[in-house]
């Protein structure tokens, strides 16, 4: 059979499409129950990307406070300890940023970071945090601007190891 240029081009195109299709499928197979159902909306990297720019509910008596930037972390028990350890390191987050960890059991005496329980998920709901694939409590964070509006919310199952990314988003606010 004579292979015409058109046939050769078609075979090449098909081969590339199959390889890329398989690679895309393989990449999508590796997900976790903590992931956002829409991975494109997980750690999108720009402010005001996900959800409305709504007012942030109070997490503690003073956070978020007017004129202050705040980061509200939402975690399950498994992430609480590593996140608190990461936050306790010097320069983990800028000192002028209020930080609070929501979800784990309150243990204010042992950490400099405020921790708040959210047994019924009211706070996560108030922050309009995305629901993870396993429909459980969200693991991620919200960034609140100095005007009290939520500017960024995302699920991030590995947030304890990615505080640098939180700092990047905080820089984006300024």
């Amino acid at each position: 059979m004579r292979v015409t240029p058109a046939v050769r081009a078609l075979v090449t195109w098909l081969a590339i499409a199959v390889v890329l299709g398989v690679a895309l499928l393989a990449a999508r197979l590796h997900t976790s129950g903590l992931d956002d159902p829409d991975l494109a909306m997980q750690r999108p990297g720009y402010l005001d990307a996900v959800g409305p720019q709504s007012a942030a509910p109070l997490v503690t008596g003073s956070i978020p406070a007017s004129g202050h930037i705040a980061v509200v972390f939402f975690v399950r028990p498994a992430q609480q300890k590593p996140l608190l350890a990461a936050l306790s390191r010097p320069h983990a987050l800028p000192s002028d940023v209020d930080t609070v960890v929501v979800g784990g059991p309150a243990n204010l005496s042992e950490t400099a970071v405020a921790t708040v329980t959210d047994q019924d998920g009211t706070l996560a709901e108030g922050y309009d945090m995305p629901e993870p694939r396993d429909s459980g409590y969200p693991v991620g964070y919200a960034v609140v601007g100095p005007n009290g509006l939520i500017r960024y919310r995302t699920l991030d199952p590995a947030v304890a190891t990615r505080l640098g990314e939180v700092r990047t988003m905080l820089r984006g606010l300024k």
Partner: protein
Amino acid sequence: MNRPVSWLRGAAVTLAVEALLYVSYPAHEARLHWFTSFFVGGSVALIGMTVYVAQENRRVPLPGMWVILGHVVAMFPDLLFVAGIAHRRWMDVSSAT
């Protein structure tokens, strides 16, 4: 160097560079950014090569480099993000060009 060998070498270099770009996204949820920027950058590269062939009426030199260049331009916001600069809407231009 004969054409098949040259073609194979170019394809191998392109695949190797693209593989490196892929693993530069360590987080599993970020890997789809590789696909997005590859498809966008690769499409622009294909359009550019088509225009080149139509105008010059000869083979495109280093076609793999066109794809890699288009891909790197499209993923430029991700490179900035790694450097600590958050995405901004205007950066969408790198994916739109």
